[in-house]
């Protein structure tokens, strides 16, 4: 993926332009200010440093004692979140990279996810996953975690693609009584900018997908960073081939907004799911499973997915760029679909 520009039209001229990372920082600050139950816990967030991506910069100064450094202990960080939620708090945990949250797999899928069903007590925790590929990050600093967070029942998984969503969905996540896995794309942190009006009108509910561009020829389904590649591909296909793609940003990955998915497929009859994650059992596979079981008769062509290469994520920059779909590859696949 290359550095995206926000084409989602979420900003309005009157507002100031801020980055995706600023939106998250602001959401955290506003949540801390609004609710004494909120606190932050994570590696390197509790000092002047402000975290590996400076997402929490300035918060410890404003909210002393409520932004805490943890040891390198992702399992315990997650246990602490669950326990604090049981104790009436609304913890927000930062994993330093989504890749390291693999250490917390058990606490997430077996403790956080099962708690409500087993005991009737809900667990309002927000877990923040700085995720996704950046050039030179290599196999262990580029992963997307949504597939392994979504299989076990009990976790809500969301992945904002826009500046406004980064703010709104984080506020929603913190307000939600269930455990919310909040996936932030590291490439968007400073590359995505948009005008942001804190006093703007209503936003979408947490579980809703958003149509980022309307079209009637092919539906492009994606989320997180890949939404911007889809928008570029759509623009290119419109310009060069007069093909109108509908770009659907899933926003919430578990549960899926199956209504929005099927509505768009009903309109276009052709669908491509693009993710930067691995194909096998990924969110793209689940979306295809939903479409093929519940939207079979809506389809005019076989649905397709475009995912990452089925290997670890390479360090070297050219290999890295070849590892996941980009606008050009999405456009090529969508063109084939449109011409099917």
């Amino acid at each position, binding site marked *: 993926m290359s550095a995206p520009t926000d084409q989602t039209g979420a900003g309005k001229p009157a507002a100031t332009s801020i980055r995706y990372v600023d939106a998250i920082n602001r959401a955290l600050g*506003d949540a801390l200010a*609004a609710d004494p139950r909120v*606190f932050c816990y994570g590696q390197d967030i509790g000092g002047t440093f402000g975290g590996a991506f400076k997402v929490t910069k300035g918060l410890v100064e404003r909210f002393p*004692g*409520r932004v805490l450094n*943890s*040891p390198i*202990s*992702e*399992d*315990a*960080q*997650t*246990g*602490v*979140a*669950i*326990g*604090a*939620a*049981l*104790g*009436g*708090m609304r*913890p927000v945990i930062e994993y330093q990279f989504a890749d390291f949250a693999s250490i917390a797999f*058990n*606490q997430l899928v*077996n*403790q956080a*996810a*099962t708690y*409500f*069903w*087993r*005991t*009737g*007590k*809900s667990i309002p925790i927000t877990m923040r996953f700085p995720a996704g590929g950046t050039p030179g990050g290599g196999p262990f600093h580029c992963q997307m975690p949504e597939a392994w967070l979504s299989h076990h*029942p*009990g976790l*809500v998984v969301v992945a904002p693609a826009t500046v406004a969503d980064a703010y*709104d969905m984080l*506020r*929603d996540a*913190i*307000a*939600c*009584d*269930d455990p919310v896995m909040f996936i932030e794309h590291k490439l968007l942190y400073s590359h995505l900018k948009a005008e942001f009006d804190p006093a703007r009108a209503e*936003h979408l*509910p*947490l*579980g*809703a997908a958003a149509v980022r561009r309307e079209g009637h020829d092919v539906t492009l389904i994606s989320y997180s960073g890949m939404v911007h590649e889809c928008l570029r591909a759509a623009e290119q296909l419109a310009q060069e081939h007069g093909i109108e793609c509908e770009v659907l940003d899933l926003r*919430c990955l578990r*549960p899926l*907004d199956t*209504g929005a998915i099927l509505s768009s497929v009903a309109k276009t009859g052709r669908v491509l799911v693009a993710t930067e994650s691995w194909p096998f059992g990924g969110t793209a596979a689940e979306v295809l499973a939903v479409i093929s079981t519940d939207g079979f008769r809506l389809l005019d062509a076989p649905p397709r997915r475009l995912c990452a290469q089925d290997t670890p994520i390479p360090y070297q920059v050219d290999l890295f760029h070849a590892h996941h779909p980009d606008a050009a590859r999405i456009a090529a696949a969508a063109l084939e679909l449109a011409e099917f």
Partner: protein
Amino acid sequence: MSAPTNAARLELLRWMIRARALDERLVALYRSGGIRGGSVFTGRGQEAFSAAGAMQLREGDVFAPLIRDSAGRLVRGETPLDALRVCLGRKTGVMRGRDGNIHRGTLGNGVIPMISHLGSTIGVIAGLLLAKRLRGERDAIGLVSIGDGGMNTGAFHEGFNVLAVERLPVVLMVADNQLSYSTFSDRSYACTNLVERAAGYGVRGHTCDGTDADACLTTLSEAAARVRAGEGPQMVVAKLLRLAGHGEHDDAAYVTADMKARFGDNVPLFEQKLQADGVLSADALATLWSTARADVATALTQAQSEPEPLPAQEDWSAYSVRDLLSFKAVL
């Protein structure tokens, strides 16, 4: 370390007997086919340590028990009926048939229900105690159990280190019962006594003979007092023996005669000691047993009369917020 009062000793014995009576009834039930599916797990041999720990707690304190804490759970306010409902999968039980046996528990009693994965409750109690600190509830303390096997999980290490770094008010009870399922201690750890791990976390360690109820009471009350005095986490290691299989499906044939010879049964040992000290008459002891058994019997009749959950009426959703399509933060 002051010697425990006779009142405290008698209270402890009462809990031990109640726990033993409950466990023995569960075993009988299992053997007679009265438990549908699954196994039964008991705390026999570990009643004194478990109950003496839980006796240190007050209203508002929290306990994270494990497999062998049938006694401590009772001390915290769980009734035999509560326990039996869960083991029998009753809809009326606190787990509503969804989870069973030793996974039972409710924050209403100040008990964190365990998941099976050993070690993973340690981080949870750290979070719960941190929450209390952040909310300004300064009086509450925590008590958390682990075994000689569970001490070697990564989750234990990460969680206990957080408790230590945050200097949270907690007593860690390590029940070193010589066995991790069938595995002997020499395949679980290489130090002489697990209390040697305390210093590495920067916490104070204590040891006691887990078959000696008086020693359990004395040691655990000192540890709890130090926690309440603001000295931070305390680790108490008891040596004892699991006087049962891992669960009732396990005949524990691997336990050697030598191991059995080295460890007595804490319940009769304490009964004899209290009688020798003139604190307990034979009649009073008999009454303790008959009351405990009668209570369990009544509870069992009650639990068995209650309904099991019906699949068709089950609410098959793992989420408390049912409709995220209409969910937004109210700002």
